[in-house]
């Protein structure tokens, strides 16, 4: 039996749904239907078309690109339920969320938790409006998996810091306006000597060099800091708190890397659809090569079990109000399956799936090759698979360190 409360809640949600539909109707340019996010984490900015700009500004003004962030800082201030409705309605209309990038995925949530009032007021609203690109200054040539070994030094000069050192694998560094950075403020303690500092990428002394990757693309950069002056108010949290804040940010990164966003984007059409296009089928529409058919089924079963696991992790987190312990496996499994899929797609397509450039290949074929190669990074970045295994063994399974 529906109670009075149910009825009220229902009418509230329906009213909100109407509001979203009206907003989309008034603001979403028809020509953008079915397009992806123009501001993703790893791709270049491209040139924003007037229609894309209009849509970004409209969504940004409402804070609906960051729907659950507090409205006082420019977020949508919506409940999870309302955010879900927003998603549904965007999907229904073929619209995308134009607000994205590392500011939304990683830095924003972390700053909301650890930043000062002034920092939140300064940095969160431009993220919500999609006006500022952030990049991540974590890894260094000698600090990859052993991240806490980082050596980039921020020297205290009373009213400011002077930063010297080198970061690497700075995703999108060549396009970024600002960088959230882990720097060393104390050489005497590996972990407690690390601080979390915000650096303007156009500050004097910052130099960015894109790195050409095996995929032929340059999504990552080396970033050099040569006597870069950084104001003291750009320190997040206390001096020496950087490792704690930095790890928290990595949790946001893992959630985003595994969950789906980036992985799902790399996935494209189903393997069986690709196979039907490239290899022989029998009279019943079955893939004639029984071994290949078996490999595809084997993959798709595990992939679907992974998708169910991602959904289950989300449901458990919501019900229990914390992070589900199976969340720890999502990054490791999702990235591995993504790579397997890319390899299988190539096996299906044969030489046609290995085109590098030029005539004789479709756009999808060419981008598939680049995605296959780029995908090799997914089990290395964001905490490599080996690091994930350490985390699962120690934190979830309680297996101890060597004595």
């Amino acid at each position, binding site marked *: 039996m529906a109670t009075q409360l149910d009825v009220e809640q229902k009418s509230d949600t329906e009213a909100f749904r109407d509001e979203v539909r009206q907003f989309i109707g008034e603001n979403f340019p028809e020509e953008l239907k079915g397009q992806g996010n123009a501001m993703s984490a790893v791709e270049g900015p491209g040139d924003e078309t007037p229609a894309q700009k209009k849509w970004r500004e409209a969504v940004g003004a409402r804070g609906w690109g960051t729907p659950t962030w507090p409205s006082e800082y420019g977020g949508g201030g919506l409940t999870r339920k309302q955010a879900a409705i927003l998603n549904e309605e965007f999907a229904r209309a073929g619209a995308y969320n134009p607000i994205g990038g590392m500011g939304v995925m990683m830095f924003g949530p972390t700053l909301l938790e650890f930043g000062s009032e002034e920092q939140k007021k300064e940095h969160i609203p431009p993220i919500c409006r999609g006006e500022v690109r952030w990049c991540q200054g974590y890894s260094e040539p000698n600090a990859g998996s052993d991240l806490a070994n980082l050596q980039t030094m921020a020297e205290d000069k009373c009213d400011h810091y002077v930063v010297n050192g080198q970061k690497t694998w700075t995703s999108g560094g060549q396009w970024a306006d600002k960088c959230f950075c882990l720097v060393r403020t104390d050489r005497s303690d590996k972990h407690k000597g690390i601080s979390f500092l915000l650096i303007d990428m156009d500050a004097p002394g910052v130099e960015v060099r894109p790195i050409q990757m095996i995929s032929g693309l340059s999504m990552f950069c080396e970033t050099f800091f040569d006597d870069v002056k950084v104001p003291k108010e750009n320190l997040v949290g206390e001096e020496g708190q950087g490792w704690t804040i930095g790890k928290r940010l990595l949790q946001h990164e893992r959630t985003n890397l595994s969950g789906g966003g980036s992985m799902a984007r790399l996935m494209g059409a189903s393997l069986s659809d690709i196979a039907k296009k490239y290899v022989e089928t029998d009279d019943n529409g*079955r893939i004639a090569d029984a071994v290949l058919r078996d490999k595809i*089924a084997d993959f798709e079963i595990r992939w679907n079990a992974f998708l*169910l*696991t991602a959904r*289950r992790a989300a449901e458990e987190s919501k019900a229990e109000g914390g992070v589900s312990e199976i969340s720890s496996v999502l990054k490791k499994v999702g990235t591995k399956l993504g790579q397997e899929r890319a390899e299988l797609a190539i096996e299906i397509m044969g030489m046609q799936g290995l085109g590098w450039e030029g005539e004789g290949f479709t756009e999808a074929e060419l981008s598939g090759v680049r995605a296959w190669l780029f995908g090799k990074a997914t089990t290395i970045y964001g905490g490599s698979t*080996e690091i994930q295994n350490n985390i699962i063994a120690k934190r979830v399974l309680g297996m101890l360190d060597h*004595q």
Partner: protein
Amino acid sequence: MAVLNDEQEMLRDMAREWTTNESPVTEWRKVRAAGDPQAWDSSVYATMAEMGWTGVIIPEEHGGSDFGWLSAGLVVEQLGKTLTASPLVATTIAASAIILGGSDEQKAEWLPRITSGEVVATLAVDESARHDPSKIEAAVSDGKLSGTKKFVHEAHGAGLFVVAATDGLYLVPAGDGVTLHNRSLADQRNHADVEFSGAAAHKLASGGDDLLEQVLDRARVLTACEMLGMAQQVFDTTLDYLKQRVQFNQVLATFQALQHRMADLFADLALMRSAVEGGLQALDAGFRTSQAATMAKAEANRVLHLVSKEGIQLHGGIGMTDEYDVGFYLKRARVLEASFGSTSYLKDRYASLSGY
């Protein structure tokens, strides 16, 4: 673990408490030692019926609680953990055939007696050592069934067989024209070839053409639940062992080579649980059940196979001994993997269902 409602949580906690306290693996050792081909304790099954476990999927009008498949799966998972021998899985699968395909009279005749625990029932499909429901020769003429079914689970002690014949599913009560030939498998549980020679057979006529497949999907999912409990238990036991065993003056759990293997198994277990629970939820929702059930058993096969092998290897020599439980799980695992579809059978089926 799927998010449960109160009644499901209660049922699971009750099953967990009962199996832990009343039916640990030592109880299975006693049943095994007794050497009876039935290989389950009748008083244990009576207790299960008293606790309501025999009626979890049975409609209330026939004495059941109609809690649904997710609830049934929660109980079976707990039974799998301690290798509790009982005909609950077989009987629940057979009951589902009656619910899906039985007439009102057939339901009224059998379901209350199944709920009360009076009747044990089981599904008899395969006629060779490998699961293949497309190869059925058992046939009924003038209400009499003739044919032989191989490796039927819980046949000893069954009062009712649900038998796949060339033209559909039939109810065949134990008795005249039904002969059992014991088949002792590595798991030392209850299996027999069942020979039907002119046994009285009553058709389950209401289920439609795909009744057998619908019942097999339920068999696959429920079997996968038992396998999930087993895999979880082998994993937990192995983890405990690694935390205790000392070599080179180090607890084994501190070795990274072993940590990463356990992390891999933990991830696979997560996928297995999602697939199995997804199968149960699909049965309850009645949506894309064939695909979900096929996936559930395929993942259960894959992961339990791996976990049961690794369980022995990670225990080392002690895992090879009868004194340790881990070997029981290995032997039971392979029997369940072969039941209602091997991994290759299920992958083929999944591909066909997906249109490739």
